[in-house]
């Protein structure tokens, strides 16, 4: 009951704070794709895999008073910070979630920037294609981001390191 809400709150709790909606989306997508049982479904959008269900759940959790959303102006746009409220912590205490090794993965991702996580999630989205085709997809669909060959390689390495953290190797 409300398990999916609890999973998402657990993810934010173990990350301590997540800054940026894009970053939150990518972190959950990458975690889901690698090993962790998040239920939100993702489709490919402008910034790569995106889940409207996740957006909705975050909004719900804010409305419920379980998540704290701080909107702040950054340059020409707004950025959002997410943390758990005291009520949220209380709720999570009643609805415990067990996802061992999620914290290691999320803390690591939280230390990366949203642009890199966007690349990592896009590489994962096309993971069933050969590497050369993945690169072509990245360079075509994300031409504005001007990712380099080297960055794509870094994304592959990063995925491997996350898999190790998640205990998949």
């Amino acid at each position, binding site marked *: *009951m*409300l398990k999916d*809400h609890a999973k998402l709150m657990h993810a934010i709790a173990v990350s301590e704070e997540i800054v940026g*909606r*894009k970053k*939150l*989306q990518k972190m959950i997508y990458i975690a889901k794709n690698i090993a962790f049982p998040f*239920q939100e*479904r993702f*489709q*490919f*959008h*402008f*910034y790569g895999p*995106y889940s*409207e269900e996740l*957006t*909705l759940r975050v*909004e*719900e959790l804010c*409305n*419920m*008073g*379980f998540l704290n959303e701080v909107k702040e102006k*950054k340059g*020409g*746009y*707004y*950025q959002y910070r997410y943390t758990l409220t005291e*009520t949220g912590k209380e*709720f999570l205490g*009643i*609805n415990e979630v067990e996802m061992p090794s999620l914290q290691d993965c999320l803390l690591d991702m939280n230390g990366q920037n949203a642009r890199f996580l966007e690349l990592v999630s896009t590489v994962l989205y*096309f993971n069933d294609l050969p590497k050369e085709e993945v690169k072509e*997809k990245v360079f*075509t*669909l994300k031409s504005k981001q001007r990712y380099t060959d080297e960055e794509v390689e870094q994304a592959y390495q990063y995925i491997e390191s996350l898999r190790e953290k998640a205990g998949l190797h």
Partner: protein
Amino acid sequence: MAYSAEKLNEEKVFKDPVHRYIHVRDRVIWDLIGTKEFQRLRRIKQLGTTYLTFHGAEHSRFNHSLGVYEIVRRISDDVFLGRPEWDEEDRILTLCAALLHDLGHGPFSHSFEKVFDLDHEHYTRAIILGDTEVHHVLTRVSADFPQKVADVIAKTSKNKLVVSLISSQIDADRMDYLQRDAYFTGVSYGHFDMERILRVMRPREDQVVIKQSGMHAVEDYIMSRYQMYWQVYFHPVTRSAEVILTKILHRAKDLHEQKYKFKYDPIHFYSLFNGEITLEDYIKLDEAIILYYFQMWQEEEDPILKDLCCRFMDRNLYKYVEFDPAKEYKKLAELSALFIKAGMDPEYYLVVDSSSDLPYDFYRPGEEEERLPIHLLLKNGDIRELSRESEIVDAISGKRRTDHKLYFPADFIADDSKKPNIKKQIKMLLEID
């Protein structure tokens, strides 16, 4: 003559209650319709369990797929024809993507995908790219054509104009399903002036735009969509049926994991239970097969599976009360404990279900809400986002409506022959008689 340009000797037509006729002249379209993977869509209802609320809603994904194809055909052959921004080379790609966009839907896909962690979009791609009749037809156009069609449907194609015709906030998919679902459910919502919208659509490099003179028709379309979501798609009785269906699948999966010996061997489910479903197995699934098992499982020894299947087949659905998760989550925990004491497993008999819809939204730079907005083409040639011109749309832009309900078997709770005191407490907490 190239296969992609090949025409039938004479036009074929399908009589259709929404568009009057679906017209087919292209050989490739005719061949695709004849494939077994496309014919399978006849056996999958467009609206899943909605027929238990609106008895007319028995129409299939086959009907809808033909409808989306017909709308795109009209746009391509009538509205966009000869316009410099429209590349005729994209015509057959767009038609194929429109026809095949729902190809991977399984039976009762909403519940199925949730329980078995499946994704119909993955199967749409798999059918188009795998060793299937659809794939063989598409390959006759060119070796890379199946991939192009799959990319349009997955929205990973670089051709944004074609993608926007199939998938955007004003696309052929929505225009067909709103009208079709309204027709088959018999409701008076869902109708809008599609003829007008089609006449004012214009192609641009990366999306379809709407001439400003068509703004009111678009407002009507958005309001129709809003009404259909809350009056039909999120109807609480339909959701009750969906809850029970989901729980049946959960129970069957749990029993399999517990090595329960089914009276009727669920051979079609084994690969689903084990998470090893092949494309061949997936294509075999349809609603007739699922309902067969539900029918047979009414005779199972397991009381929960038996009860849930009887409820679904006999339409003895759960009742519901409004539920506010923020204020009532502690009450939910209390109820859960009482259900256990009363002998009802809350995992199956006490279910929170949520519905939510965002009628229209626009893209705000730097944010992640990534819905492609509807753009109006002004008289001076400028492009302007719809909510900046329309007060009605502005009023609902970005406004999400969410509804939570708590579902339970009222008949079990009303039965005072066992654990009357506990049931009395449950009734008090649920605030029911």
